[in-house]
């Protein structure tokens, strides 16, 4: 579909219609360390795109730059044709670009249910006056029932419904990953950026999750996934981007990548 080694500068080839997320020439340094160095790529709509690369290649940092956790030193992020460079995290998320964290960030003293309920976008009750005033509140309550229904569905899907009333801080490492992923889904995103969503998740469940992700892509969601499990990447992604030392080393189909000399040298090692 797209050519190997695209550089974002001539990304004009990819239209907004087909590629909702495009980054061009992102650069970020921390102190003396060049974490991301002129990275450019685009993600195709409705695809599962893998973002791989050695540890420290700048994948998580790229996520942080895209989602506004850090501001890039230079370069741009475009989402649905809009320049979202330097926007606040919530502004990015409001536009439908939602991420999960490599090291999970659950809301520890809130129950799993509360964690999930928080995710919905544009809740009526998030306006203080509606939550407080008599008549308006009735509508809030109604809405809440609907939301709760959806939360339970999702919890069941991810097999954590038995933990619904547990405080999120008491979950095990894997359970936290699940919570975070399911919570991200509830925000009704256009596109999800998942940072190592399967690390620490039991293989059986992992399979189910991947199925679910495929279903979602069929519904039009787009995924960009950082993952070190090559099986997952190779079997599920239509497109893979390889980062190395802060910039994009290669792009292409899993097959292309697997046979790319430079990728093998830099990342895959002899194996796989």
């Amino acid at each position, binding site marked *: 579909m797209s050519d190997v080694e695209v550089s974002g500068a001539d990304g004009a080839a990819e239209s907004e219609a087909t590629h909702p997320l495009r980054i061009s020439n992102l650069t970020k340094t921390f102190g003396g360390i060049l974490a991301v160095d002129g990275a450019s790529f685009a993600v195709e709509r409705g695809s599962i795109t893998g973002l791989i690369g050695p540890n420290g290649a700048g994948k998580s940092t790229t996520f942080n730059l895209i*989602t506004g*956790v850090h501001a890039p030193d230079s370069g741009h992020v475009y989402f649905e044709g809009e320049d979202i460079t330097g926007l*606040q*995290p*919530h*502004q990015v*998320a*409001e536009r439908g670009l*939602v*991420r999960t*964290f490599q090291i999970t*960030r*659950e*809301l*520890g*003293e*809130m*129950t799993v*249910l*509360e964690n999930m*309920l*928080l*995710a919905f*976008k544009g*809740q*009526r*009750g*998030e*306006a*203080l006056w509606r*939550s*407080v005033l008599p008549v308006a*509140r009735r509508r*809030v*309550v109604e809405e*809440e*029932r609907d939301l*709760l229904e959806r939360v*339970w569905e999702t919890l069941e899907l991810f097999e954590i*419904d*038995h*933990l*619904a*009333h*547990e*405080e999120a*801080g*008491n979950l095990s490492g894997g359970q936290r990953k699940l919570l975070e992923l399911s*919570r*991200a889904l509830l*925000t009704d995103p256009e596109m999800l950026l998942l940072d190592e969503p399967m690390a620490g998740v039991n293989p059986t469940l992992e399979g189910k999750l991947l199925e679910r992700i495929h279903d979602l892509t069929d519904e039009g969601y787009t995924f960009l996934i950082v993952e070190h499990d090559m099986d997952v990447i190779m079997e599920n992604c239509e497109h893979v981007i390889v980062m190395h030392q802060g910039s994009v080393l290669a792009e292409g189909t899993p097959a292309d990548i697997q046979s790319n000399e430079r990728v093998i040298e830099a990342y895959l090692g002899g194996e796989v």
Partner: protein
Amino acid sequence: MTVDDPDTDPDRPATDGSGAAPASPLEGAAAVTESRPRWQVDLGYIVLTTIGIYVLITALGLLTGLGFGGVFRQLQTVTFLAAAYALVVLALNLHWGYTGLFNIGVAGFMAVGAYGMAILTAPTEGTTTPGLGLPMWVGIPVGVALAGLVGLIVVLPALRIRADYFAIVTLAFAEVIRLTINSGALADVDAFGRQLGTGGGRGINFPLLEHAIPRWVLYEGGDPAQGATFVGVQVLTVTNRLGIERTVVESAIYTSVLVGLVAVVFVLSVRTANSPFGRLLKGIREDELATKSLGKNTDLVKIKVFVLGCAIMGLAGIFWQGRNGYVDPDAFLPIITFYIFIALIIGGSGSNTGSVVGALVFAGVLFEGPPYVQRIINQVIDLPRPTTIYDAVVALGSFDPLPLVGYTVGQLANLRFVLFGVILILLMIYRPDGLLGHRDEPASPLDLRAERPTDGPSSVDGGDDDE
């Protein structure tokens, strides 16, 4: 499903009764009232505490020979103080308990409210620090708005810094406010051709709200000369018949208005907490970046909540000082903020009911208690009063403990602070969640537990983790 669903019940005590091992008496009451709606339980706590404190004060008052009149006044004072505390503690709970904004500049915001009102309503002439001479119904809302505005100014820069820095910045701001008010620079200024100012260390006299508000309730246009209002006629006839003095009636009305305000703020706070908005606040408290990444404009929410809380603090300041008819900067020393924190922590931060209970306990028992004890002791025995502890201890050498006791009793007012400290410490060690904190108060307008039972023997379902 309903609240009474049998499936849910067996699980409940396990979760509700969790927390520090020895359940408090209040917690015990919770078990009894399990099946009642939450608001009834909450009201129960508040009423029980109030009754308890009233009984205690009455008993002590009679013991100290205050007489019924004195006891009545004491009850009124305590009620007033408790209500004033409750108002500001509720506001603090909104900041800290829900949003995790550790604001230790409470006294400063109270000062802004009180001073705003004082400057507006102080008479234009005839006093050392003239004001604008406006009526109180201008002064109060403007004072409240000013407190909110200053809250806005404080929170904007403070948004970006971490919790403990935030605390110190708010404390510094409160001191800036107090020192500025205190300074000669703003003591009297010419503004709009008027003499205005904070009065510096001298403070401002303004018309007593304790009179103005009740009169406004009792008389047409707040002026006794214009005759009584409908309510006024009723109240005055009844009280006259009972032979209650007018000033007593006025104080009672003032206190009632304040209690009413507390009730309103309380209900609004509860609704706020049990709503999606409250959920946002909790989310911010737990992990702001995660909440942001879900698309929530946390900064805006923090600003709103902070400003709202500060406005309520301003209101509390107004009513508090409104009883004196006089404000000066010393009423807003940082220690006041810590009093408010003690009250909140006793009750349990994160719980609105706890806030009110804490205010009652603090104002009624801790704050007013030691002077009572001192009185009782002084009445019962005539103790020697050595000037230093050395003399007292030396006397101990000759087996005379009385000087030491006398010295200690004489120092009770100071030892009260030691008591505050000890209580704070004990609470933080043994009941960091206070009497009622960390309860299972869902951040949702629905009772989440009741909505759907957990089905089957779930593998791990257990109590809250209580540090």
